[in-house]
Structures are given as C-alpha cells and as structure tokens.
C-alpha cells in the first residue's frame, strides 16, 4: 500500500478509542477484577464447608440427587423442608448385598419453583434404594407428577475422572491454540492470547466461587464445558483483533506500534461489540426462558462473553504496546 492512498488517510483520522493512552487504567481495572476473583477462590478454598476453590457439585463429589415434580396446585407452599428431612432420616431402606447401608442422617432438601419441585441430595444409593426414598417421601410431599422425576447417582470415582478429563482437555486446548497462534502470528501474540484467556477463565471461576460462598451454588460438569467454551470464544475474539493489528503493521509501517494497535482496535471495535451482542442474545434468552438446568450454564457463558470482549479489545492489545520501543 502506498502512503498516499485514500484508504489510509480516511482510516488514520478516525480514532474512536485511543487505547494506548489509557492502558494504565485498563490494567488497573483488569487487575482489580482478577484480584477480587482470586480472593473468592481462596476464600472458598479456606471455607471448611467447601475445601475447594469452587464448590463441587454432585458430578464431582458423587452421591444421589432426586428431583421430583409435585402435583400440589395451590398447596405447594405448605411443605416444609425440615419435615422432609425428618422423614428421610427415619426411612428404612432395603438392604443391598455388597454395599454398606447409606447414611441418611444429613439429607439436603430444597424446594424449587415456589414448592412445585422438590430436590433431594443424598449419599450414593442403589437404584432400588432411590425408588424406596421416592416411595417413602410420597405420603408427605406427594402426589408427584407421573414421569416428572429425575434420579442421578454418581459414584465417587466418576467425579474424579470427570475433573481429570476436564482439566486435561482444557490444557490440551490451551496448548493447541498457543501452537496455532505461534505458527500463524508469532510467540508474542500467542503469549498475550493465553494471558487474555487466563484472565477470562479466572474471572468466571471467581464469580462462581463467590456465588458458591454466598448462594451455595455448586459447579457441575456443564460448568467445565462453559469454561472450555469461554476459552475458545475468548481466543476467537482476540485473534480477530490481532489479525487486524498484523494487517495495520504491514500497511502502515511508518506508525509506531502503539498507533498501529490503536488503529486496529478502533477498526474492529464495532465488530467485537456487535458479535458479543449477538452471542449474548441467545444466551440471555436461555437464561430467562431456558429450562432451569441451563440457567447457570448460560450465565457462565454470558459473563465469559462480556469479559472475553473486554480482554480482546482492551487488555490483550494494550499489553502488546509494552513492546513499543518509542514509549519509555
């Protein structure tokens, strides 16, 4: 490209977002949010009732969860969780060979949707014992809607495997992405893409650590899926900005790196905001209208999309200007 071409003069004039001049403020915001997230993770870890950076759900700890849809009409509110707990404590379960009888002394009972749905968390039960619990609870909390029940039993070994396979796939995905970006761009870009990625994943984890502390929210295997998706989305977002920076570096060699970055970010700003907006629309729809199973999954993704946009239009490019020799 020749310097006097109309494209250049047109696009160098309009700067909508002078990134390099406020990079300190950007770093401050990101550092503060990451710090709050890390605090949440550490507090959760130190909390004796959790003991992990995130509150692990049934998928990771093992146990039996029973969900029952109640056919209760206007009397849904009358049921007390304490009564259900008392009843479960007194239940006699059928013996099963080769298994130690489950300890029912501390069942967790939750009423959802204004009492229309009952959720029980128990130690690992066999299929027969699970049915026995449902029959035992029915006189008090029933009648239940036929076909409206879900029973999940997860052995403790499966939870460990799930955690391991999630972590391994996350690491493999990270290194695969790093190799791809080093190959297509260079190692600096790969490093920054991973920094942006770690930033996004940490903040989403931190939010769920705080939710775990404040609302007793647990993370399940869907949360692991959402982290992996956020990783993919965050890199996708960042790569588009990097692609434009690379293009500007070729076309506007006479500008400093900071100016090139400012130009590229301004040019991709609309695209990044529109894309985040259009990705958020179905996610918000899932949060507000989707089944209750997907609400927190969609929340994790939505937060990831917002944080991912921030890191790709602000954090990652502003860190790139660190390599700018013209700025002391």
């Amino acid at each position: 490209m020749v310097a006097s071409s109309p494209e250049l003069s047109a696009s160098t004039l309009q700067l909508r977002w002078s990134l390099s001049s406020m990079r300190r403020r950007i770093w401050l915001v990101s550092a503060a949010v990451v710090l709050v997230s890390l605090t949440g993770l550490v507090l959760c870890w130190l909390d004796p009732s959790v003991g992990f950076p995130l509150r692990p759900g049934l998928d990771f700890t093992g146990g039996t969860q029973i969900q029952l849809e109640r056919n209760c009409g206007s009397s849904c509110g009358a049921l007390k969780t304490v009564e259900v707990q008392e009843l479960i404590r007194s239940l006699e379960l059928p013996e099963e060979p080769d298994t130690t009888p489950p300890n029912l002394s501390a069942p967790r009972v939750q009423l959802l949707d204004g009492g229309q749905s009952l959720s029980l968390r128990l130690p690992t039960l066999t299929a027969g014992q699970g049915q026995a619990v449902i029959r035992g609870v029915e006189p008090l909390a029933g009648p239940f809607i036929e076909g409206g029940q879900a029973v999940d039993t997860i052995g403790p070994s499966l939870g460990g495997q799930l955690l391991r396979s999630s972590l391994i796939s996350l690491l493999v995905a990270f290194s695969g992405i790093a190799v791809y970006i080093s190959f297509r761009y260079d190692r600096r870009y790969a490093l920054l893409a991973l920094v942006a990625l770690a930033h996004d994943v940490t903040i989403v984890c931190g939010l769920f650590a705080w939710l775990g502390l404040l609302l007793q929210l647990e993370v399940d295997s869907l949360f692991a899926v959402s982290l992996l998706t956020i990783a993919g989305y965050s890199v996708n977002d960042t790569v588009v900005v990097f692609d434009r920076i690379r293009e500007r570096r070729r076309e506007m060699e006479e500008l400093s790196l900071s100016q090139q970055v400012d130009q590229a970010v301004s040019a991709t700003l609309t695209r990044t905001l529109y894309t985040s907006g259009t990705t958020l629309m179905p996610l918000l729809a899932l949060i507000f209208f989707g089944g209750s199973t997907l609400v927190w999954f969609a929340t994790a993704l939505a937060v990831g999309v917002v944080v991912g946009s921030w890191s790709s239009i602000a954090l990652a490019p502003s860190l790139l200007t660190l390599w700018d020799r013209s700025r002391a």
Partner: protein
Amino acid sequence: MARQQGWFALVLALAISAAALLFTTPLQLGLDLRGGSQITVEVQPAGDIKRVGAEQMEAVKVVLDRRVNGLGVAESTLQTVGENQLVLQLPGEQDPTAAARILGDTALLEFRAQKPGTEADFRALRQLRSQAEAILNLREEQIRRGEETDPLDLERLGEAQSVLGLDGDMGSEEDQLRALLVKVDAEILKLLEPAALTGKQLVSAGRQPLQNNPNSWEVTLNFNGEGAEAFAELTKSIAGTDQLLSIVLDDQLISAATVGPQFKTAGISGGAATISGNFSAETARELEVKLRGGSLPLPVEVIEVRTIGPTLGAENIRRSLVAALSGLALVAVFMVFVYRLPGGVAVAALSLYALFNLAIYTLLPVTLTLPGIAGFILSIGMAVDANVLIFERIKDELRQGNTLIRSIETGFAQAFSSIVDGHLTTLISCAALFFLGTGLVKGFAATLGIGVLLSLFTALTCTRTLLRFLMGYAGLRNPSNFLPLRQISPPSA
C-alpha cells in the same frame, strides 16, 4: 453470471434435500430430552489382570449384551466409553433397579460336587439356611408393613450361632439372622469339591414349565463340547450316591440335585441338563438370565445411574426451543436493522445454516442432548460473527468510496483470514473436548464443532452466493441498501 447461478442452484438444491431429510428422518433425542435411564458400569481389574484392556472390555461387553437383551427393553443400547466403562441406555425405563442388578452381578457360576461323607452336615446346613431365610423374609415383610414381628426362637438361634462360632450379641435380630445366612453359605462351600466346570462352558440356558405342574418351572442347560465332557465326568462320579450336584452362583448355593443311579456308567452325557426345584416363572427367568449371561470374566461396578422422567424431558425441549427461537429472532431483527440488505441476506444464510446443521445431526447421527442444544445455539452466535466481520469490512470499503461490487469482493477477501483463524481456534477447543471429554461434554463439543465447520461454509459460500445473485439485479445495486448515504465519502478524495 452463469457461475453465480450455478452456485445458487447448488445451495438451493442442498437446502431442499436437507429439508426433505428432516421431514422423513426424525432427530435422535438423548435420554435427558425424552426420558429414560442410563447406567454406567466400570470394569474392575481382578486376579492376574492388573489393567483392563480392549480385549477384556470386549469380553465383558459380549456377556453384558446378552444379559441386557434378556431384559427386553426396546431400543436399549450398550456402548463402551473410555478405557474401562460401559454405558447402558434404556429409553423410557423409569425404574432401573432390575437392570442395575443384572448388570452389576458378576454371576460367577460353578458346578461342584459335594464331598463324600458330608450328607448329614450338608442337610443340616441347608435346612438351617432355608429356615433362617424364611424367618428373615417374613420379618422384613412385617417391618415394611409396620406390623408387630413374630417372636424369635432365641434359644434355637443361640444354639445355631454357637455351633457356627458366631457372636450372639451383634446388632438387631435381623442383623443376626443375616450374619447367620452369610456364615451358613460359607460353611456350605466348605463341603463342596472344587469347581468341575464353570459358566464359561455353558452355551445356553432356557426355562420351561413342568409338564405335570404348570406353576412350577425348570431351567434347562446346554454345554459346549468341553463342558459336556466335564459335566458327564462330574455326574458319573456322584451318580447313585447321596452326594449332591451343586450349582453355585457368586459363592452362594442356588441349587442342588441328586444324580440318579442310571447315570453310573456314562454320567449325564450329551451336554444337556435341567435343574428343577421350587422355581416360579419369575425366579426361573432370573436364574435363566444369569446363567445365559454366563459369568463375567471381570467384576463390574455400577458407578452412575441417571433416570429422568419423560415429562421432565418434554419440558426441557419446550423451554430450550423457545429460548433458541426467541434468541434467533432477536439476532435476525438486529442484523436487518444494522446491515439492511446484506443483513437480510445473512438472515437467509443463517436459516440455511440452521437447516444444514439439523440435517447433519440426522445424517451422522448426533444424539441431541440439552448441552448439545446449548452448543448449537452458541455456534449460531459464532456463525453470526463471521457475517458481521464480512459486512463491517464491506462498510469500511464503501466508506472509503469504493464501488459497491468491489467493496463486496474486497470485504469477503479481507475478512477471510480472521474468520478462518477464529473458527480454527474454536475448532481446536472442540476437538480437545470431544476426544478427551465424556458424556454430556462430548455432545456439546460435537454440536459446536459441526456448527463451526458449517459456519465456515455458509459464511464464505451461502452469504456470498446470495449476495452476488441479488447484485445481479440493477435495482438492488445501491449503496444505500448497505449503509446510510451520509457515511459514504465521495469517490476519490
């Protein structure tokens, strides 16, 4: 122009065949959407085998396959997952108790002869066993009904306990009875010779009602050549004596029978035998399934049981569909509002995208689960991104005063590299999830991965073809169809 029309015809033909496919072949729904039970078992290493390999998995699967078929649940599937797990899916099944029991049982089946000179002990133990079992069953039934239990003959119990060397004061009376049964089973085994043949030599098992009493059933056995020989040898050795032929399943005597003196010379030959006892139709069926399944070469452990009711599944489908459609409607409105004519084209291309996606799900086939639907919705977001990238580039070109046709061509060309990079990095994550993840994670990775691949195709082909086709009409070749006129700088500044 002819080439444009050729592409357009191809896209149209693909769309029509995809729609036709969806009308004739229904989508495969996962158990979380249509209700049913899913049981995961893990094969445990035992004895000489320290690590479970592909060969052992195959052997276990063959046995479990036979047992599952014996259950008679329509459309049940048994699949190997990972290195040492098997997943059984039972659509529509609401009470997986029986299935879990049949899967989990190792069912080590042995045919053993009773040791000579142990008749009195053997008879006494079996009698004690059946009495204790009868009393225990009665008491459990009474407890379940909330009735008063019959008084226990404590003197007789204490006597039996002291003979067997059991402690008399552990737990409730029921616990003591159970402990007694376990001890009796162990004592009975001591009176038996080592196994002459096992379930491995059994070819098939069946059941039939007795001719003279249709309420009583017998179970039939068929052995392979090696088994027939061993069985003949075994029966010959005890024919005409008081020693009983004992069938032991999982270290528990389930049946014992005398062998008549007529088999003294050759034993029961021909490799076929029947077991008659006090079988009802139901108990005969259960024994038959266990025998037919043979013995598992390795023990298995049930590690996961998930059951979901059909109405809960239907509710999930309905809500997720509403969410998906309303999200897409919002995106469509946004695209048309912001990008005008190409926005409309993108909406058409994205509708094709959704159609192709669903068609691929039925073709492969992909079983659609709730996380799978989430992956689909998310992939639509990424497909929109590709279109936004292209249209932003076209707008940039127009603002700089380029002609419409040239802007469109440059826009596609310039957006290409960032679209490919963005999609490929997402695809890398999908591949990691699909090959290393399990269950739900796999379903999500599959739909997102298919979506990302297809989005490359639709953004670079469908949108472009449709846009070029429409540009063939002079009336539409107006930059104001792309962005407000005031944003277009006059040609050549």
